[in-house]
């Protein structure tokens, strides 16, 4: 049912219908209204069973979410700006452990100088953390993305951050059509963890991983992001089929057909950009827009296709890397670049970068066999075994530990 509602309250209701079992957060503008509203629902008993925990810092909020998720509960938190930076060590940790926590990021600038208003610097500060980052254009999309986020996170065992512009969206009152409980239940199955702390089946989670396996563990996390590139549009399509509404997906093209110039952006500014484009289109200019919904994983292929053959691409972004320039623009350049550019990831977690491996890599580059993104000295066998395990068993366990156990086993080819 379409209702006039504040963005934050729409998110709170949408999250509540996802039946989170542990909600733990620390207040910071412009996220406060979301967690206040969830707090009320838990206290009055309309959201149950659910534990709402007030903590002493964002670092604790993410840490409580980590513990709750590892013990098998559906966990949710929300933050912004300084709060995200305060929890950053735990943000990386949640992703590294593969815990499907969902977090709303009410995007806000980072100080100094202190500033409570919207930009995307906070999201950019954790873009390499291993979280999936989805950007909402409207409050309707933000509300829908949360439902999709839990589904995606739990399927892949990866945490998902739903980014929505602080104040511009969180505090805007506009029409939002919220799914009812029965609809959400149909779309989002109960959480079935891949790994769980259980006295009946004791596992160690969070073990020390040395150079012998760190790269494979990291690469597996990257593969899950690539899996998300497939699952994000599939889940969005399913959502649209069930509820008749387009929300989510990887990218959002607008009037691209014959566009010579394409403007690329993320978040609520897309609305304004589309208005401007409509106006110039009326004046005869061939303009189009490409909205990026999934910033991590970054949809290189979709962006490449959307931007192929254009005369000009303009990236409008609410963050930049000081001393360098655009952040989103760098990713877009990676998608459309004409010069052959390769990335070779090497030396993760102390793995030696050997001369032999480097020479081999250079030879592959010379003969055109080097992929755009490759991983030096990656043990494909270990990756294949863990992927196979994940494909066949839901409770496949902590993946870092699985990889190490595999490495400890005598190899079939040697046995």
């Amino acid at each position, binding site marked *: 049912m379409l209702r006039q509602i504040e963005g934050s309250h729409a998110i709170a209701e949408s999250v509540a219908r996802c039946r989170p*079992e*542990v909600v*733990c957060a620390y207040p910071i503008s412009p996220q406060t209204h979301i967690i206040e509203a969830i707090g009320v629902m838990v206290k009055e008993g309309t959201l149950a*069973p*659910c*534990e709402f*925990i*007030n*903590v*002493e*810092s964002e*670092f*604790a909020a993410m*840490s*409580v*979410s*980590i*513990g*709750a*998720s*590892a*013990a*098998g*509960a559906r*966990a949710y938190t929300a933050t912004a700006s300084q709060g995200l930076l305060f929890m950053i*060590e*735990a943000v990386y*940790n949640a992703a590294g*452990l593969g815990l499907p926590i969902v977090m709303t990021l009410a995007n806000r600038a980072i100080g100094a100088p202190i500033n409570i208003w919207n930009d995307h610097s906070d999201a950019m500060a954790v873009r390499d953390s291993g979280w999936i980052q989805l950007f909402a254009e409207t409050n309707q999309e933000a509300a829908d993305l949360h439902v999709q986020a839990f589904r995606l996170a739990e399927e892949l065992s990866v945490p998902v951050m739903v980014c929505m512009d602080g104040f511009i969206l969180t505090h805007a009152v506009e029409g939002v059509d919220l799914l009812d409980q029965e609809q959400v239940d149909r779309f989002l199955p109960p959480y079935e963890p891949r790994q769980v*702390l*259980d*006295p009946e*089946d*004791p*596992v*160690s*989670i*969070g*073990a*020390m*991983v*040395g150079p012998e396996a760190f790269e494979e563990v990291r690469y597996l996390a990257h593969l899950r992001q690539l899996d998300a590139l497939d699952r994000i549009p599939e889940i969005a399509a399913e959502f649209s089929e069930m509820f008749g509404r387009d929300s989510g997906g990887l990218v959002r093209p607008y009037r691209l057909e014959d566009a010579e110039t394409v403007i690329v952006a993320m978040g609520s500014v897309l609305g304004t950009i589309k208005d401007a484009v409509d106006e110039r289109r009326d004046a005869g200019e061939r303009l189009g827009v490409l909205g990026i919904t999934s910033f991590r994983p970054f949809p290189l292929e979709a962006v490449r296709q959307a931007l192929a053959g254009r005369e000009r691409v303009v990236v409008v972004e609410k963050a930049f890397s000081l001393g360098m320039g655009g952040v989103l623009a760098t990713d877009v350049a990676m998608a459309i670049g004409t010069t052959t550019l390769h990335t070779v990831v090497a030396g993760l977690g102390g793995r030696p970068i050997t001369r032999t491996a480097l020479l081999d890599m250079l030879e592959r580059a010379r003969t055109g066999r080097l992929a755009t993104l490759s991983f030096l000295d990656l043990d494909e066998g270990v990756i294949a075994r863990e992927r196979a395990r994940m494909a066949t068993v839901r409770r496949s366990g902590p993946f*870092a*530990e699985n990889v*190490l*156990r595999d*490495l*400890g086993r005598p190899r079939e080819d040697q046995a």
Partner: protein
Amino acid sequence: MSETRVHFYQVGSFAVGNRLLSADERTVQSDRRRTNSIDSGHRACQGCGEALGARYALDAAMRVTSGQLVAVNATGCLEVFSTPFPETSWQIPWLHSLFGNAPAVATGVAAALRVKGRDQVRVVGQAGDGGTVDIGFGTLSGMFERNDDVLFVCYDNEGYMNTGVQRSAATPPTARTATTDAVGPEPGNAFGQGKDVPRIAMAHGIPYVATATVADLHDLERKVERAMSFHGARYLHVFVPCPLGWGAASSETIHVARLAKETGIFPVYEAEYGEVTGVTKIRRQAPVTEYLRLQRRYAHLFGHPGRPDVVARLQAMADANIARYGLLATEEDE
């Protein structure tokens, strides 16, 4: 299940194999059915007090909970020496997240168990002194203040051992560490005001706070058992000598721990809801020099000319503990 071979540890006069006691008075460690929560084969140094303390505490907790236990561990020696995977020593569900967040992670685990209706499963958080009194202090205090259902155990070896023996807020005055070297006019750690976390825990008014040492196995196990009889936040501060960091012989771990108690340097007591309810009296009082001389971290206080003035200050600290907690046995105690 295949039977685990029992290794006996020498633990002084309250020895594990004390066959003179009736079966129900014997320690968990002397029982073949103990869990071996942290199993042999880990990489701790020989004589590591922390390895011993963790094993005692967790096996006792396992017994009282009938095996319904989850452990959350901070970064530190205990975490590193127990899990160079795939050789994990943990026979119980175990989660390591970060250095400074174990109390909050434990809160999250407890919340999940409650919401799932699995109240019979209990949660133990554990960390070294660094993870407890320094970097984890904020999350610890938050967990206490909310009275979350977690037993938090601090294994106090008085320094950051895992990173190579640097000073923590639990490092005693004058002790040599890598960041408070025994050089200059005032060698070793400076005299500060100290940070007495058991008393700070008591100030939170939580149901149970206790201190213990690895020298008294019966006392340690009993305190774990007592702690598990409460719900809400509980805190156990265990004194665990570190042979490597303290420059003590591996074979002296129990002796050093016992002397810490017998000198008054480490008061052993328990408290409920903020009030001290029991004190372990000194059995044979020893001067602090007896304790200090066993450890190279205090070597600069002795020899010629030595620093009798500084030793006197340390003795005064021990005497203050003795007075505060009434650690000396009186006529009535006999």
